[in-house]
């Protein structure tokens, strides 16, 4: 605990030093353009003033992100387990997976807009594509790499059907599934900001882009800080959940 405190005290010191540097260059020097680099007081003011607007943006971003991630998780894990367990099919289809998975999801924007009726559904589709591949491929990998000894075990007790999937395949591959879901989560924030570039009327990314157009960089920075806080919080919560699901990997005998 004391060691933690010591480590974090250094971290905090660096944080305040960075703020001091910002204050120095924005308030006491002419080196930086004051429009692009506003002083801290202005950023804080913008943060307070725009807080409601940013919260609304957060809500509308989540309205895109949550359905897309949920769908990507269900289909990614379901499809991953399906192909993970079937070597023949996996070999037939894996060239498709390898070609499609590295494509930036934003490449599909024209088709998403052309085929889907609303901006919202098109954005969800793009976000889904971005989150699906890591989860899908991670799940396949997790299933393929299940320890042979666990397989022996499952065979010996004759696991079949629902128990086979829920009590064996999913838990055994869950470390890979969850780590790829973490990747998908981070990736989906990147895609979210891009998806909000077309047609969005609100959103965490939209907020920043909107005020960039008016050169209101105090709002832009407030938005960036707000994004950072939200994304960090979500990732920390996810890590907590992940740790809880994978509790069995960190048990100690007493």
């Amino acid at each position, binding site marked *: 605990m004391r060691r933690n405190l010591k480590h974090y005290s250094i971290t905090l010191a660096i944080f305040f030093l960075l703020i001091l540097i910002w204050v120095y260059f924005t308030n006491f020097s002419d080196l930086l353009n004051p429009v692009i680099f506003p002083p801290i007081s202005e950023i804080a003011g913008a943060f307070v003033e725009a807080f409601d607007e940013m919260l609304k943006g957060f809500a509308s971003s989540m309205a895109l992100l949550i359905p897309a991630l949920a769908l990507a998780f269900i289909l990614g894990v379901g499809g991953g387990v399906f192909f993970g367990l079937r070597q023949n099919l996996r070999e037939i289809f894996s060239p498709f997976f390898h070609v499609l998975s590295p494509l930036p999801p934003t490449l599909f924007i024209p088709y998403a807009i052309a085929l889907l009726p609303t901006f919202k559904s098109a954005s969800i589709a793009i976000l889904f594509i971005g989150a699906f591949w890591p989860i899908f491929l991670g799940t396949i990998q997790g299933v393929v790499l299940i320890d042979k*000894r666990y397989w022996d075990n499952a065979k010996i*007790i004759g696991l079949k059907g629902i128990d086979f999937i829920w009590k064996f395949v999913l838990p*055994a591959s869950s470390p890979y599934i969850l780590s790829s879901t973490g990747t998908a989560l981070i990736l989906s924030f990147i895609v979210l900001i891009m998806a909000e570039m077309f047609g969005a009327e609100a959103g965490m990314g939209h907020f920043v882009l909107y005020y960039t157009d008016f050169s209101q960089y105090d709002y832009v920075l407030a938005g960036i800080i707000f994004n950072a806080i939200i994304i960090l919080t979500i990732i920390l919560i996810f890590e907590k959940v992940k740790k809880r699901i994978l509790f*069995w990997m*960190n*048990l100690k*005998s007493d």
Partner: protein
Amino acid sequence: MGPSGSGKSTFLRLLADLEKPNSGEIIINNKNGISDIAVVFQDYSLFPWLTAEENIVLALKKRLKGKKSKKELFQLAEQYLTMVQLGHATKKYPGEMSGGMRQRAAIARALSVGSDLLLMDEPFGALDPITRIQLQELVLQINQDQKKTIIFVTHDAEEAIMLADSIVMFSPGPPGKILECIDVPFEKPINRNELFESREFIEFRDDLLQLMNKGIFEKLNQKEAVEDGGGI
């Protein structure tokens, strides 16, 4: 019994239908293979994400397909765990148990499969000597109480003598072969202390080790001859 690489575990895996023979058949009780297989491995006989009782319920479910309620299954699991002196640890995860406890739970799960044949693949190889003796006693007791045939793989001569009615000695492979089947001349139940001091035991054990070592030395000599030839 046999040295490493002699095919003991492979033989066990063939019996358990975890591997298919390249040729030949495995006939047990005039039938090809066994339907219910109970196996205890050296480790990993339990899923680490399930508690001791959940692990056993999983095995019971298959055997008692829908005949028992969930509650009854858990009661039954507790009975099996009590049988191996783990009645207090039903809700523990394998990661929270010591090596000895894990193997007890693994034995409980193997018993819950309800097979007449119990296969054990060096189950106590990773345990400390005292825990090992305790678990050997447990196996003897189960063998006596439940009249189960146990095929037990080990490379420890004392363990083999303590537990076995007959010892099948494998020669070092590959390909491993069966060297000899030896009946153990000591009546059960055995008093460990008395036995270990008796001359008959020491002689029998030395014979056993000699038989095992003979194979190993022959193999070593063979290899040396080949290596010498290759060097010239």
